[in-house]
């Protein structure tokens, strides 16, 4: 049992659940802070080891399925619970377990100023998240997947709102919850519709139905589109992408784990698992929306000054990349990018966290020249950025090339052009961050500001840890550096291996995917062009940033307002809600209350008439009794005989 991949995957899934239960039930442990953190980290490490074991344990295409009957009804069961350990799910399991473990380790130091009870709460949520996410990854059927899917949404809500005393954090948490919920409703409807026509939730049985030709059923487009809606919400695709940048109100490690590496990629993973159901017309929609989202988010990322928001939009953009690949019909490529992206985006977020931890500000103008003060952080951040830009020898190179090649091979020329523009913008905005934060001189005289006097130094004291060591930003301690280095070396390792050999694990150029020879040089060239432009503008300052902004005046203006998408939501929702509540108010006032008022008025007036019968004089009652008795006697005498 212990050596087979199914058992190990189960262990990997259950260890975080055990951690969650211990922390949730044993409240003294939870409130003690650090010990709770150590418990959670230890079990996460065990979970990672089991995940690696599960991945190594299975061979090739082997699929291990452990399932228990669930919801028994009339001798059969409607659904099963269990795990499905195959090549993809165990690989994804490793990513989840790895990032969860590293982020939990990192958080011990990052959140060292939190109250013990808050820290315990943080690790409780983290354990629950790790369990739920692994549940999504290993789910053998759509019903279990949906349950875990909702659980990760809950954890996301709880962790975005970790600093719930901050109104923005509370707002962002609710916004994230509702926006993803809008998509989840689609997913639920899709799953149920699918069950109605096929009678099964099970992924394996669905695949059998497809191969036996039973599945292209009527309404499949609608069903798969509904399933896609769930992915739109979770993976922050246009038009439901607005929650992800706001979700950055949560602690940075949370953003790294949930809003970069794992939860937001659940949508991509869901499509990867169910893509065999998707008809071409829906895939076309997936590809176009993915590419459009990628472009939109990349443009938005160029104008952000908050380092975390740049990374958030970058995540949205990369999710668009993955979706475009799936839409082009090469879901394995999208999944490959999901894995590499998980590594380097977690790295970037944790690196940004280290910077924020040192500078006590999210804003790029407050940073600058940090490379000298935090050399290690700068180094790993640059590795992450080069991976994201798709430079050869770095993590994202092969997966990004594959996606571009996949869109070409899938005859999706429109999305391909959009993605090429995005590749340029990605390199540009990420190196804008790198230069502004690490290499260029501070834009607004940076650190010297604190030396002017206590009044200005006080400006920074509202940061999470006060202004104590603001004057000397430095590399974070080893507990925080270790996860950064692990992720950086993994990104590098994947990058070097995949660049040299041209494939990685099961991923590589597949049949039917013939990328033209010019694609790789063009993509790399366009990335270098982006880097060069960023260098000229933000490092050398040969091109004035203001003039560059002026050239793109209207677009920049629109991007600064997030293309008014949030405003449109606000006004449409406000209008719709107001109209709806007016209607409900009218109905309540005139229809519901009206009926009640009429009934009560009738009751009162009828009572007024009937009260006169009650004279209060005993003789009248006797008279009534006598007459009643007489009538009764007559009735018995004549009517009943």
């Amino acid at each position: 049992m212990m050596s087979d991949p199914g058992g190990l995957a189960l262990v990997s899934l259950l260890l975080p659940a055990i951690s969650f239960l211990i922390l949730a039930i044993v409240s003294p442990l939870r409130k003690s802070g650090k010990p709770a953190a150590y418990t959670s980290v230890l079990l996460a490490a065990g979970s990672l080891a089991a995940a690696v074991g599960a991945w190594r344990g299975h061979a090739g295409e082997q699929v291990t399925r452990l399932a228990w009957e669930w919801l028994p009804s009339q001798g059969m069961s409607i659904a099963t619970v269990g795990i499905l350990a195959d090549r993809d799910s165990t690989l994804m399991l490793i990513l989840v377990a790895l990032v969860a473990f590293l982020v939990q380790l990192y958080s011990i130091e990052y959140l060292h100023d939190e109250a013990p009870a808050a820290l315990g709460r943080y690790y409780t949520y983290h354990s629950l998240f790790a369990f739920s996410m692994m549940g999504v990854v290993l789910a053998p059927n759509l019903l279990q997947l949906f349950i875990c899917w909702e659980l990760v949404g809950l954890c996301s809500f709880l962790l975005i709102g970790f600093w719930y005393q901050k109104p923005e954090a509370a707002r962002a948490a609710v916004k994230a919850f509702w926006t993803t919920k809008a998509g989840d409703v689609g997913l639920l409807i899709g799953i149920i519709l699918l069950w109605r026509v096929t009678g099964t939730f099970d992924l394996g049985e669905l695949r059998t139905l497809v191969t036996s030709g039973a599945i292209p059923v009527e309404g499949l487009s609608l069903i798969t589109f509904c399933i896609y809606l769930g992915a739109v919400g979770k993976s922050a695709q246009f038009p439901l992408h607005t929650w992800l940048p706001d979700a950055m109100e949560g602690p940075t490690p949370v953003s790294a784990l949930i809003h970069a590496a794992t939860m937001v990629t659940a949508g991509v993973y869901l499509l990867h698992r169910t893509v065999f159901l998707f008809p071409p017309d829906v895939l076309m929609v997936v590809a176009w929306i993915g590419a459009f989202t990628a472009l939109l988010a990349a443009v938005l990322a160029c104008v952000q000054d908050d380092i975390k928001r740049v990374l958030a939009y970058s995540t949205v953009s990369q999710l668009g990349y993955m979706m475009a690949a799936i839409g082009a019909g090469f879901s394995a490529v999208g999944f490959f990018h999901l894995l590499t992206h998980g590594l380097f985006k977690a790295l970037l977020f944790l690196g940004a966290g280290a910077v924020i931890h040192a500078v006590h500000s999210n804003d790029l103008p407050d940073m600058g020249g940090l490379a000298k003060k935090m050399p290690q952080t700068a180094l790993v951040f640059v590795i992450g950025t080069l991976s994201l830009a798709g430079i050869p020898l770095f993590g994202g190179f092969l997966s990004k090339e594959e996606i571009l090649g996949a869109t070409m091979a899938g005859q999706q020329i429109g999305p391909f052009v959009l993605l090429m523009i995005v590749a340029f913008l990605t390199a540009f905005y990420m190196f804008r961050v790198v230069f502004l934060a690490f290499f260029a001189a501070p834009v607004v005289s940076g650190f010297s500001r604190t030396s002017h006097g206590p009044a200005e130094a006080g400006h920074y004291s509202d940061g999470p840890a006060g202004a104590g060591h603001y004057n000397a930003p430095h590399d974070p301690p080893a507990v925080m550096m270790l996860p950064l280095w692990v992720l950086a070396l993994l990104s590098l390792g994947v990058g070097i291996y995949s660049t040299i050999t041209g494939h990685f694990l099961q991923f590589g150029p597949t049949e039917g995917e013939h990328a033209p020879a010019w694609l790789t040089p063009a993509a790399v060239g366009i990335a270098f062009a982006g880097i060069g432009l960023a260098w000229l503008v933000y490092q050398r300052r040969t091109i004035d940033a203001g003039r560059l902004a002026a050239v793109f005046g209207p677009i920049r203006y629109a991007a600064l307002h997030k293309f008014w998408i949030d405003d449109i939501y606000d006004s449409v929702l406000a209008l719709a809600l107001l109209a709806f509540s007016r209607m409900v108010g009218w109905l309540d006032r005139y229809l519901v209350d009206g009926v009640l008022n009429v009934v009560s008025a009738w009751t009162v007036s009828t009572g007024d008439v009937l009260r006169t019968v009650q004279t209060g004089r005993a003789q009248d009652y006797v008279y009534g009794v006598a007459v009643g008795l007489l009538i009764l006697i007559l009735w018995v005498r004549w009517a009943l005989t």
Partner: protein
Amino acid sequence: MGLQAYLILAATVFCIGLFGVVTRRNTIGILLGIELMLNAVNINLVAFSHFNGTATGMIFTLFTICITVSEAAIGLALVILLFRVRRTVMADHLDLLKG
């Protein structure tokens, strides 16, 4: 005379009593009406007892008379108390239960 004559007499007395109970304004008059109704019942009991040749009705009547006496005593006591509280014994003035 047969049983029927007695029964007619009893019914007549009962109706006179009921008429008194329903129409008299004075509470004492109402009590008198009630006594008449009870006596009508007694006549019936005695008549049935005589014509059936059993003593049960007679004995039952004795009990009824005893209870009637007690009832009259309690009724009169109530009337006196009522007069003390309300300064009237007229039944149509006693309408506290009027709806």
